[in-house]
């Protein structure tokens, strides 16, 4: 009995560092951000309570709604092709004996590991200007006659941001989808084969429904990550989301409001607003995916 108490003492001792640091460096910042969302603060002078004023401003703030639209557009533009390509590749890899499968998979995953901020700048250099590398490639191949000003077009800028995100994440998504697929027992596939199902049919009627939990996991983590998108669009152009604020994401707007305009209170309100939207989107996607399962 005494031994048991002694052991429990160690059990608590072992988790104390984790929870202490968690409370100080994670929980406190979250709670304080909520607290600040009802205040005015420039980062130096005294904090002033302004009630729900910040939230009223938020609802009328056209940059907030614009930044949300941009974030969702850039996210959809990378998430849909990401899942599509990952499913296609996972289908190819699981239904065929592909030589060099591990090599291909390893290469596809590489862009996920490198510094996103560096990649933003790299793609800026590759695309920006009349003499940019991409323009020279396209002109040499005869695809275009005059160079494209990629970063004066909002559509191009937003598409490039989506493309970089897709490029960085499709390999990761592939690995997760494949892990979900290989956990499906081979007996199910064999039974389908005996019944005469083609591999395309097997994929749509057996594999896809069975990897739904995996897809749900990917969708929710991707929403949480994608709605906070910052590094790539912030380094892709001037950090203000130009051209015409087309790649101003909400996270960038929060950063600019708090640390460039020193409006920490309102930046906190923006954070709370985005937090609520992420929560709503996660719940909706959870409901949609689960509803399908019940049918």
């Amino acid at each position: 009995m005494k031994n048991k108490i002694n052991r429990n003492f160690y059990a608590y001792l072992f988790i104390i560092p984790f929870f202490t640091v968690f409370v100080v460096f994670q929980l406190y910042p979250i709670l304080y951000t909520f607290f600040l969302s009802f205040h005015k603060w420039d980062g130096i002078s005294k904090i002033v309570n302004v009630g729900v004023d910040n939230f009223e401003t938020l609802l009328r703030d056209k940059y907030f709604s614009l930044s949300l639209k941009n974030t969702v557009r850039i996210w959809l533009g990378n998430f849909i092709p990401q899942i599509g390509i990952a499913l296609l590749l996972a289908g190819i890899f699981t239904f065929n004996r592909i030589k060099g499968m591990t090599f291909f998979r390893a290469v596809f995953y590489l862009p996920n590991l490198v510094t996103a901020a560096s990649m933003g700048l790299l793609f800026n250099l590759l695309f920006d200007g009349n003499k940019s590398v991409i323009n020279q490639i396209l002109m040499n191949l005869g695809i275009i006659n005059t160079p494209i000003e990629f970063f004066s077009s909002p559509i191009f800028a937003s598409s490039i941001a989506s493309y970089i995100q897709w490029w960085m994440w499709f390999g990761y998504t592939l690995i997760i989808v494949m892990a979900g697929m290989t956990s499906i027992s081979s007996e199910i596939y064999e039974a389908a084969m005996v019944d005469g199902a083609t591999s395309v049919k097997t994929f749509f009627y057996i594999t896809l429904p069975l990897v739904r939990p995996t897809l749900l996991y990917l969708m929710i983590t991707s929403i949480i990550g994608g709605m906070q998108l910052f590094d790539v669009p912030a380094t892709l152009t001037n950090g203000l989301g130009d051209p015409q604020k087309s790649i101003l994401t909400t996270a960038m707007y929060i950063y600019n409001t708090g640390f460039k305009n020193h409006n920490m209170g309102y930046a906190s309100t923006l954070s709370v607003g985005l937090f609520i939207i992420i929560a709503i989107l996660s719940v909706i996607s959870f409901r949609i995916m689960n509803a399908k399962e019940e049918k």
Partner: protein
Amino acid sequence: MGIKSKSKVLNFLKYAFLILLTFISIFPFYLMIVNGTHSSMDIVTKLNLWFGSSLGENYAKMQSNVNIWSGFFNSLKISVPYTAFTGYFGALTAYSFAKYNFKGKNILFTILLVSMMLPSQLSIIGFYQLNLKLNLLNTTLPFSIPGIANASAVFFLKGIIEQSIPDSMIEAARIEGSSEFMLFNRLILPCISPGVATMCIFNFVSSWNNYLGPLVILSSNDKYTMPVMISMIKGLYLTNYGAMYLAIAISVIPIIIMYLFCSKYIINGITAGAEK
């Protein structure tokens, strides 16, 4: 014959598709390295698909504006302790949750799981205020200490401890008179070191790539980490494209080299994490 040639065409298309995606994945890195070896004049006047001879010149230009190695070492100063903390404290916390029964265990573990889903970048204002209050602005501590509380490391390592360490082994060590703390350090930690190593690779990379946090907390040139430094070079180098490509390359090549050696480890690590 018809079916056979059809399946041949299909097979060819599959490989063509895979090779195209391989090209897409690697080509930007190739352009980065190739352009890093060309003069800025070369870069704006012609298309360069092979290595040039201006590497030394670009390096000198790059170093004349900022000392890239200072950014490199500042990143290491953050990433190495962060990684060590996640490995050690992640394993310690995971061990406690995996092998002890104590009051409040389930609630605390639920809190830990929920914390994994929290959008961390959204508390950046609170994080700034915390470090202002603690007088930690422009220091590396706000980035190394949080390694102690890395929930995904705990989650991952808890699974490994449960799978690979039988209770009987722990009991045997206790009978031999080992103290609880010694037991963890001498027995548990060595046994799960492969899992800890995998976890450490991921945490090192994510710490190395962290941009927003250091951007907010660090305020002097000599403290900037690699990503912060890279994000500022566009304004510093203006039209020195060669120097910029080279700087970007230096910021990502360590990760690419590391990946060449342990890609198998890394991919197995993601898979193991996803299956739980």
